[in-house]
Structure formats: C-alpha cells, structure tokens
C-alpha cells in the first residue's frame, strides 16, 4: 500500500516532539476524524532553525509530518510557506489515493505554525511600536 519512502519515515520519523519555547505553533485536524497534527517551529532570521511535530494519525500522517519537517528545516519561511501538499506526496514517492488528504495535514500544520510565528511577530512589532509611540507621547 505504501511506498518504501513512506514506510521508512513512518518507522523512523524525524523531528518528533515538542519545542517548549516555540516561536510558532500550528495545529490542524480533529481527533474525531482521526488526525491531529501539531507543528512547532523556531525561527532565526526568518529561517526555520528548528522544527518538531506531534501527530495522532495513520502511517501516512506520521510519514507526511516527518517529511514536511525535513523539507522545512533550514528553509526561509517564505520558501517553507510554498511547500505544497503535492511536493510532500512527491517527496514520499506517492501516497495511496485515499491517503492524499494526510499530505494536506502536514503542509497545513507547518504553514499554520509559520503564520502563528508571523502573527506573533507582528503583534510584537505592533506592541513595540505601541510602546515606542506611547513613549514618544
């Protein structure tokens, strides 16, 4: 059913775990549908310095998360945001048709984590601006 690549990532997933002081966290899915995926990123100079994930899902979900984490590591966030579901499925040498949705999960969770980072950054900048302006006042 699964490609050798999928099985390899499933059996030996990279970057499993939690980053306690993550710069961004993204969670997608719903346990009712059998899939929850959480991505944690640490960002340095707009590059993904560290990435970890947790998943509650099938073998495809685990392999996808592992592959996405590998693909994202070291990338500029603008590049990481461009990782598509298709890229992930291709990198895994294909996924069974009914499991293609799992590849959405991985990329979506990563993108959400990056967006979370960007939102926090913006908030912080807004906050900084606010402080500055209040200071200036």
């Amino acid at each position, binding site marked *: 059913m699964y490609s050798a690549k999928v099985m390899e990532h499933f059996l030996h997933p990279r970057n499993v775990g939690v980053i306690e002081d993550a710069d961004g966290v993204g969670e997608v899915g719903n*346990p009712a549908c059998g*899939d929850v995926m*959480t991505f944690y990123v640490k960002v340095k100079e707009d590059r993904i310095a560290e990435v970890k994930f947790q998943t*509650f*899902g*099938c*073998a495809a979900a685990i392999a996808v998360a592992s592959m996405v984490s590998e693909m994202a590591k070291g990338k500029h966030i603008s590049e990481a945001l461009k990782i598509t579901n298709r890229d992930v499925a291709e990198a895994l040498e294909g996924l069974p048709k*009914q499991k293609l949705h799992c590849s959405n999960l991985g990329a979506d969770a990563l993108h959400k984590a990056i967006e979370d980072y960007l939102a926090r950054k913006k908030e912080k900048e807004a906050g900084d601006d606010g402080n500055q302006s209040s200071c200036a006042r």
Partner: protein
Amino acid sequence: MVYLDYIAAAPVLPEVYEAMLPYFTEHWGNPSSIHELGEKAREALEKARAQVADLIGAAPEEIIFTSCGTEANNFALKGIAWAHQNRGKHIVISSVEHFSIMHCAKTLERWGFEVTRLPVDSYGMVNPADVEKALRPDTILVSVMHANNEVGTIQPIAEIGRLCRERNVLFHTDAVATVGLIPVNVEELNVDLLTLSANTFYGPKGAAALYLRKGVRIQPLLDGGIQERGLRAGTENVPAIVGMGVAAAIAKKETNSRIRHLQALRDRLIEELPKRIPDTILLGHPHQRLPNNVSVAIEYVEGESMLLFMDMAGIRISSGSACVSRSLKVSHVMLAMGISAATAQGSLVFTLGIHNTEKDVDRVLAALPPVVQRLREMSPLYHK
C-alpha cells in the same frame, strides 16, 4: 507469523483442501449436465448441501449456495423486499450491521422502502423491546446480525425471532460471524433466513449460503438458469461448495473443543491487555461475545499505525479505525455504541483461530505495549 485476523480470512483445513482438488481437474463437470460427469458434480453438490444444512439444523432444500456472505445478504434483503412489497414496504435492521446489510438497506430506501435502524447499548446489543416498538403493520422483514464482526457481541436472536414470528414478520440474521464458530440452530433461533459463509469455519472463499425456511417466498437476485431451484442462477462453484460441505461437517464435530481453545486465549488477551497498556477499553459485551473476538480501543493512538507496527513485528491484526476504512469514516458500529470518534480511532480487533497458541498471545502481549508507548509519545493528545 502470528495471525489474529481470522474474521477477515482463514486458510482452509487440510481435509477441505484435499476434498476440493479433484473438482478442478478430474470431476470438473457442470452439475446441470445430464451425463456422468455432470451427475458426479451434482452428487457432490447435494452432499455439500446436506452437510451445510446439518450444521445449522436445516433441511438440505432450505440451503441456497451463493458466492459470498455479501451476496447472501443482498439476496435476503432485496429478494424479500421485492417478493413481499405488496404486503408492505417497511424493513427493520440494527445500527451495527455489516456493510452488506447497511448499504442494501440504503438502496432499498432509494427504491421507496422505509428502513428503521435499531439502536444498540454501549455493548453493541440490540434490545428486543426496541424491535417490538419498531414493528408496524407494514413491516415485512427484520434483519439483525447474529454476532458483530468488529466487537464480537452476540445478539438475542432467538428472542427477536420469537417477536417477529408472533407478528408474522419475516426475520433474517446475518450469521457470517457465528455459523461454524458457535452452535447455531435455525429452529432455536426462530429465523426465516440466515446468511453463513464458509471461510468462517475454514472453508474456502467463494462459498457461502442463504438458509431460506421452507415456504418463504423470495425473488432471485441472480436471474437465469434453474440452478438452486431457480433461486440463484449461475454455474455452481463446485470445488468451493464441496470444500464448504467438508468444512461444515468438521465444524459440527469440533465446535465445542474449538470454543474451549479459543476462549482461553481470548480471555487471556482481554485480561492482560488493559493491565499492560493503560487506558485500554474492552469493546463489546463482556460475556455475550464471540469466543474468538478481542476488540479494544487504545486511547490517544490511531489504529492503522499500531497495525502496521505490529505487522512489522510479524503480527497480523485489524482495526476499525477510520484511517483503515478506505472511506475514512470511523466504524459505524462503535459510533452506534456511543464510543467517541477519537476513542474509536484507537480500535484494534483480534480474531483468533484454531491455529493460534498461547505463544501467539504472548507475542502480542510483548509486542503491543512498546508500539503503543512509542505512538503515544508522538501523540498530541497524550499527556502522561
């Protein structure tokens, strides 16, 4: 290899295998041919029919061979619906039926029939009182499975059958999970139609049957020649049916010893799994349960992942998790039992067979806990 997926498929018995072989290359006749080779095939067919009938306490002419349990279930529901629609268009099924009943019922709804789905309790058990409530003057058929293939719960069929008979409503039971595994007698169960399948009792794939009580009218699902008294056309799969007959005869003799063997293994798994894996829930009824079924939900992990890790370890099991069911839906059986979708994701089904040993159980008990542990550590839902 440790194989604990007997509900999905089983090897045939050596005696069954030996009995089938000559029908491929030596006695290859068509039972409808009136020469000697056809005659031989017909005799073999009728012998098998008597053997299968004997297994369930039926008369040989009440057995109609089909190609699989699904065909027999479709035949029962559609055939009775077509033949009796002038009396009414209401049908009752349970909410934990196999897909081959569930989806038939949906098709019947598209054809203008009305279907009531009986609720089940948290063990997956139908309450006969609910059957009584569901019966209407236009009810023509009730179909409740004998035992559930996923959670192993055995339904109060005899009682439901009695209620139906009192109300003059035909009663069908899908006994694919029970016939040949536990004693089944069509008289005691008060059924008018019953589905059974050879592979449950180590007969071959491609052979199953519908028991149809004498005098019950039905429309064929497969129109054509006059095989099976005109009720199921098509050249009979003689080798498979011969194998089914032999398997039935052996099952009849060995039922009790098989049950003892299976129950011991089952009970050890049921007892030990929750001890070794915290947050493991037994699904299905604790006592009214198939002797070969262990169905559990393991919280915070997903079935397919466990299944594949176990597969790597040489252990073949099954799961009712959504990720396994190509349709990506959680088992309707577990949902009907009120199990949350998240919990149902962690479903594992072990079905034991005659070849299993204590050692197989030991291997499962050794292999599963670390797999669960590993997956739980990956799981965002799990917090120690």
